């Protein structure tokens, strides 16, 4: 359904959801925005910078969470997570797409992560499209876009004084049930805005044959060149909406088994008990990060594992830019493979 929402009415609507749901909206934290629970005083941030600094994946896979609590005499109990039904408002399409990508990893027959699943099932996601696309994002390059609808229950398009609300599921419809329908003219106008935004996004790099090039140049000098100044920190992966690696640690003093975010860019990530490290330097680790997103995701679910949110570009402390790396990768030699 296509509905029309007065901007003035938005704060009231968000507050009304609180009767039934925990509501998360982007709010200001220092110099950036962050998804935080809505209270009476909350001020919603919808303008620049478009994305929250920490991607909304953190609402589904917290940085740290307790899995098991140990009791005396060798017993244990599963930690209760106590997630209330919730609405996350203001997710950008790249980040919503990322949650769909993560579903393919966390929700699999026989291997479903119950914590992830519960949070997903209890969450309604309402997207805010990017009518003025951000500068360092490149969603269209990787096949998604500023008004991508994947994995949203509703998507809003900014029309100036109003939003067009496209509901995309029953849950989404229920959130906006009191709104009046948008006329065909308004809908057409919104589509135009969406198209203009889409066309504004530059092509950051070519994706054709990219996978083959990266695969066939596994041992190329290229990886050394692009990783030379890499510090081996966790910025590009922790802030990435599609990175989901974690480490399970027994915090013995607390008698808890916890799960923390981890990253392939850390030395300790691939360090084995023997002391051997199959990815001994930043060269192999950088290769892993890029290959996971642009080779292995494709092998596994036939989707690129980067949604072009631009966070790794913005916040890498040494200015390593995934777009530039992939443009350079496109100049590598390769042979067309004829695999069936």
């Amino acid at each position: 359904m296509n509905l029309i929402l007065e901007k003035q009415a938005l704060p009231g609507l968000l507050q009304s959801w609180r009767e039934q749901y925990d509501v998360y909206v982007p709010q200001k934290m220092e110099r950036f925005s962050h998804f935080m629970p809505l209270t009476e005083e909350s001020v919603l941030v919808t303008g620049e910078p478009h994305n929250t600094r920490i991607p909304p994946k953190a609402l589904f896979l917290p940085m740290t969470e307790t899995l098991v609590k140990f009791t005396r005499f060798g017993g244990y109990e599963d930690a209760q997570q106590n997630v209330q039904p919730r609405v996350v408002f203001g997710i950008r399409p790249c980040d919503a797409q990322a949650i769909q990508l993560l579903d393919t990893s966390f929700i699999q027959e026989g291997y479903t992560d119950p914590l992830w699943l519960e949070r997903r099932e209890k969450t309604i996601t309402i997207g805010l499209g990017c009518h003025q696309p951000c500068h360092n994002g490149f969603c269209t390059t990787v096949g998604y876009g500023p008004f991508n609808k994947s994995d949203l229950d509703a998507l809003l398009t900014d029309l100036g004084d109003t939003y067009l609300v496209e509901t995309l599921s029953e849950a989404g419809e229920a959130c906006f049930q009191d709104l009046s329908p948008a006329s065909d003219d308004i809908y057409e106008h919104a589509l135009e805005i969406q198209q203009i935004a889409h066309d504004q996004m530059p092509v950051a790099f070519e994706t054709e044959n990219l996978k083959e090039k990266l695969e066939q140049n596994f041992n190329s000098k290229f990886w050394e060149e692009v990783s030379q100044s890499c510090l081996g920190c966790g910025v590009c992966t922790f802030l990435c909406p599609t990175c989901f690696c974690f480490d399970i640690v027994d915090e013995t003093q607390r008698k808890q088994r916890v799960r923390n975010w981890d990253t392939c860019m850390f030395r300790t990530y691939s360090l084995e008990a023997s002391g051997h490290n199959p990815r001994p330097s930043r060269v192999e680790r950088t290769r892993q990060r890029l290959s996971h997103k642009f080779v292995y995701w494709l092998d596994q679910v036939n989707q690129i594992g980067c949604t072009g949110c631009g966070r790794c570009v913005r916040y890498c402390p040494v200015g390593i830019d995934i777009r530039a790396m992939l443009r350079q990768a496109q100049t590598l030699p390769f042979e067309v493979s004829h695999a069936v």
Partner: protein
Amino acid sequence: MPDLNAIKAEAKRLLAEGVVEVVVAFKPGDTPLHPQPAFFTNVDEVENLVYDGLCQNNLATFLTRLPKTKKVGMLVRGCENRSVNALVVEKQKSRENLYLVGIPCEGIIDWRKIVERAGEAVLAVNENNYVVEIETRDEHFTFSKNELLHDSCLRCVHPTPLSADILIGEALPEGNLAIARKAVEEFEAQTIEDKYAWFQKEAERCIRCYACREACPMCYCTECFVDHIEPRWTESGATPAGMQGWHIVRAFHQTARCTDCGACERACPMDIKMTYLTEKLNHDMINKYNFEAGLDTQTLPPFATVTLDDKNRFMA
């Protein structure tokens, strides 16, 4: 701004004459806000060398990542030179294997201060005589450079490299220690509750990505205390205890080693302030021991020296 051509000429000479095997400097990034550290090994590549106020890293952090015996040329500003000195004191590199191209530093621009004022769609940044012109997708901005400088640079005492092999450009006047102390004094003047609240607010935003550690030239341990498993020194997760533990111990490990370059803060993706802790320790070291890190390549930091007449009870 120092003459870029003079920097390039010197870098080329160093490589051509075999004085060094690699010159560590900067190259353009994909956007003007983020120049990238770069490693030049032949003369032709040096054409690509850039230097401006947005070069935010402390290049000395790469020193311990290069083979110890490699002859390294490095572009150094005041703080970088002091970090290099501190590393030489700690025997991480011998001074003979180094050639320092010094740049009297007008301060490092905090790119976040640009984004805050002009948005992220920055197409060009031009600096001239302490004025910064910024071209964005939709607008033109003019700022005084001081407005955009990183906080550490605003309190810098030694902007001119103290022991470079060559200086490109004129030496700048030393900064004022009284001004440098202001931030620490303001912090100290707070009540203990306010100090703790401030510390909590900063530390507990931490995502434990360790960009601050990796960006810091003095954090070169092969195994950082947070990565140690048996025994575990801190909580592993992004919990209050874990985050506070990281921030406290990281700062203490910098005692009399930190040069207040601010690279840790500039690297932090969560805009966490942390130099107030290291600066407090720096000023304590100046006040109590009359010691400042990196002023020369011989003097050991007070806590790294042990003598038989030490008054510590546990030594008796």
